[in-house]
């Protein structure tokens, strides 16, 4: 004999079907309304079929057992964690080059003279004035001396401005690090911890906190532009079959050291310091151990300035700290320091050479620093000597006699002027920097004009290379983003099809209920009423 069937059993199946279809429509509605939300991961209702209840003594082989409807097992997110890892790694790489590119652009605005008249034009004016002075009718005339001096004053003004703007570039980077980047990082860490707490409490109560997880992932993406990070999820078993996710974020050092920045409800911090020499230092306070009572031990601040492989922080730090060949050992990036030192070297070499020529001919120094010294010239402290301005000192146009005595009756000789012209135009000089770690590094060997041009051309080559790398990395990033979207993005047509599907299944469930109702109606109201 077949197993008896509960009379009202079918209703539960229909009701479960109705509820499932309704809930699926809700999820589709959620997906559709969030099609433009940044960082939204599409959701899906997981359905499972309810199997008939277990075995019992009263079952027989001729029984026909049917499943008991549909069960909603949960709403899940469709997200590929491997793509997330790829995306975050690429974000860090893009961050490095982006930061470097923007700094090189600012340096380019100072030294790119394709479109404007600045130092090169000033140098040319100086040489022209000296050539005027070397003419036989102008040599040793007060007027031509004044002309040369004022052309130098003009040139030095432009040079001072450039030096000052270059200093501002450095200050801007330091200020950006200190007041924007580092506070942002600490803010993100704070917010992520808050979200961790909310997500955990929601999950404990049975929710899945999908929207909060999306928010958290967005914040982690923002964090990933600053330095390379590792994100790990751990399942925490709270007993009673309740499992929650906990999140751990680790900063990966270039040498493989891992600094735990965030572990569930606790986070470390990052700090930035600018030294007096304009160099920057980034330190991190990180978690080293988790204690049984839930508290953590932290260590730090540990210096990670040289231990970052990618990221905006590395891009900025490289620009602040590295000076290419001037460093000892030479570093791989020509940062702001390289341009500062090369520029200073151009001014120092030019001015020292001219001073030496004038002194050797029996005169005095034509240029001094702002403190009156005649060594250690930089682009910002060089000026025309006060004595030259008030006429006590002038360019000595004649060289001394071969025996070292003065040639007092050579009032219009001009060999010293010719030597000065030669020193600026044609002579091969070596450009080094005393302020560098490696004072023997010859950054350029050639004329003064050549040295200044080198600054401009080096900047343009560096920028072009950085630009190319940036474009390349951005396109890879875009591809990964496309892949992520392909997995997690909302596809309008698909959602609309779901709408149609679940609407039909809702109609079908409702029709089932109507059918059962009519069947029972026949049974209840129309059975056994013969002769009534």
């Amino acid at each position: 004999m077949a197993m008896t069937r509960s009379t009202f059993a079918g209703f539960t199946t229909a009701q479960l079907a109705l509820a499932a279809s309704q809930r699926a429509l809700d999820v589709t509605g959620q997906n559709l309304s969030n099609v433009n939300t940044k960082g939204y991961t599409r959701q899906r209702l997981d359905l499972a079929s309810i199997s008939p209840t277990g075995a019992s003594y009263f079952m027989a082989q001729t029984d026909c057992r049917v499943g008991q409807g549909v069960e909603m097992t949960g709403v899940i997110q469709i997200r590929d964690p491997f793509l997330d890892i790829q995306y975050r790694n690429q974000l860090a790489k893009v961050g490095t080059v982006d930061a470097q590119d923007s700094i090189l652009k600012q340096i380019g605005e100072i030294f790119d003279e394709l479109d404007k008249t600045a130092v090169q034009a000033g140098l040319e004016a100086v040489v022209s004035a000296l050539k005027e002075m070397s003419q036989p009718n102008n040599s040793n005339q007060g007027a031509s001396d004044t002309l040369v001096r004022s052309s130098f004053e003009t040139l030095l003004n432009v040079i001072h401005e450039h030096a000052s703007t270059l200093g501002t570039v450095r200050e801007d980077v330091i200020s950006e690090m200190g007041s924007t980047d580092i506070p942002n990082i600490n803010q993100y860490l704070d917010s992520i911890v808050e979200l961790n707490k909310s997500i955990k409490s929601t999950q404990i109560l049975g929710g899945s906190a999908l929207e909060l997880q999306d928010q958290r992932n967005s914040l982690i993406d923002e964090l990933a532009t600053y330095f390379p990070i590792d994100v790990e999820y751990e399942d925490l078993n709270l007993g009673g079959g309740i499992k929650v996710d906990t999140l751990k974020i680790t900063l990966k050092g270039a040498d493989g050291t891992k600094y735990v920045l965030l572990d569930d409800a606790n986070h470390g911090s990052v700090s930035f310091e600018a030294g007096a020499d304009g160099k920057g230092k980034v330190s991190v306070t990180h978690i080293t151990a988790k204690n049984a009572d839930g508290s953590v031990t932290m260590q730090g601040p540990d210096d990670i300035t040289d231990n970052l492989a990618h990221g905006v922080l590395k891009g900025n730090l490289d620009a602040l700290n590295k000076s290419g060949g001037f460093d000892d050992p030479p570093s791989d990036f020509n940062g702001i320091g390289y341009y500062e030192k090369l520029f200073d070297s151009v001014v120092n070499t030019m001015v020292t050479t001219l001073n030496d020529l004038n002194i050797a001919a029996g005169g005095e120094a034509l240029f001094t620093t702002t403190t009156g010294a005649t060594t250690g010239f930089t682009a910002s402290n060089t000026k025309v000597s006060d004595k030259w301005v008030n006429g006590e000192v002038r360019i000595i146009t004649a060289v001394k006699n071969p025996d070292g005595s003065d040639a007092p009756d050579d009032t219009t000789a001009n060999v010293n002027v010719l030597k000065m012209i030669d020193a600026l135009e044609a002579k091969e000089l070596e450009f080094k920097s005393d302020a560098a770690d490696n004072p023997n590094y010859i950054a350029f060997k050639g004329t003064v004009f050549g040295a200044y041009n080198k600054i401009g051309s080096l900047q343009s080559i560096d920028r072009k290379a950085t630009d190319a790398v940036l474009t390349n990395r951005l396109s890879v990033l875009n591809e990964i983003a496309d892949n992520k979207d392909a997995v997690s993005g909302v596809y309008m047509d698909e959602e609309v099809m779901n709408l149609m599907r679940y609407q039909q299944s809702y109609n079908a469930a409702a029709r089932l209920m109507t059918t059962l109702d009519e069947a029972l109606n026949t049974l209840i109201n129309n059975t056994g009423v013969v002769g009534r």
Partner: protein
Amino acid sequence: MAMTRITTNMIMRNYQNNLTSTLGGLESARKQVETGRRFSKSYEDPTAAAKAAILERRYMQNQDYQTSLTNVQKWQDSQEDIVTALNDMAITIEKEYSIGSLNDPVGEAGRKAYAQALEELQNSMVSTLNARFGDTFVLAGNDGKNVPFTLEDGADGYKVLHYRGKPVSGPDADPAVLKELAGETTFVDLGFGMDIQGDTVVASSAFNTALPGIKLVGYVGDGNGTTADMVTMVGKMAKALKEPTFDADEYKTMMAEFSDHRERLEDQFSVLGTKTQLLNATKDRLESEELAITQQFDDAVNINPAEAIMNYSWANYAYNSALKVGTSIITPSLLDFMK
């Protein structure tokens, strides 16, 4: 094979990126048309930018040389003027004051008149030799601020010419000093590849503008057997004319030496003429170099206007097409077809 899902966001993002880069292309094409240059920032073409910087430097050098050359030509012209004036005076002396003086019937009074005229001419010669260009004395070698030539009373009753304080003729003249003064040079860079070794300018690498006056008038020890320079000689001749007994033979000898000096003065014309030719040739060379540099600069930095406009039209077309595509990229989805 798994089909990649094409989501709305993906389409929008890629469309936006491509539209931005098309717009970027349009913007740079527009800049090319407006400015006539292929690029406006060095990093867009570092090689061409470096070349442009070098060419600009060479152009300015070329302009400097041309300015210097014009000035040197004027300086040279005043030298020529002096030589011409001096020569004219010497011819006058040769023609009118030699043959005439030898005619005895003139008598002592007549010779005294001639002597006076000769002394006047002598003063004129010194004035001419002391000519200036601006504030500088043209024939003073390297001492252009001070008057080079003076006439000082000599021990033998006639005035001796002094150059920069040193006697040019007479027993006190020092040939070694005079030779050094005559060899003074003042070089100017005119683009011959000026080379300075230590404190000396290599002679072939620059243009020498100096013409020490004693080279024109002669001096003791100049290798031509000079006993007295031109100017002192005139003084000697005047003294001889003033003597009560006129020694015609001595006068004739002096006149012969004077004529030799004058002939050598004429040689200076050809020396100066050669230098002027060199200056003219240099001027032509500098002018054609200027053209060449301008052309090279044009090739490196500028863009052919026709090419620029064509680029712009194409970029414009590409941008408009991208915009049109945009209206259909927000594709109608299934939503639009549902009842």
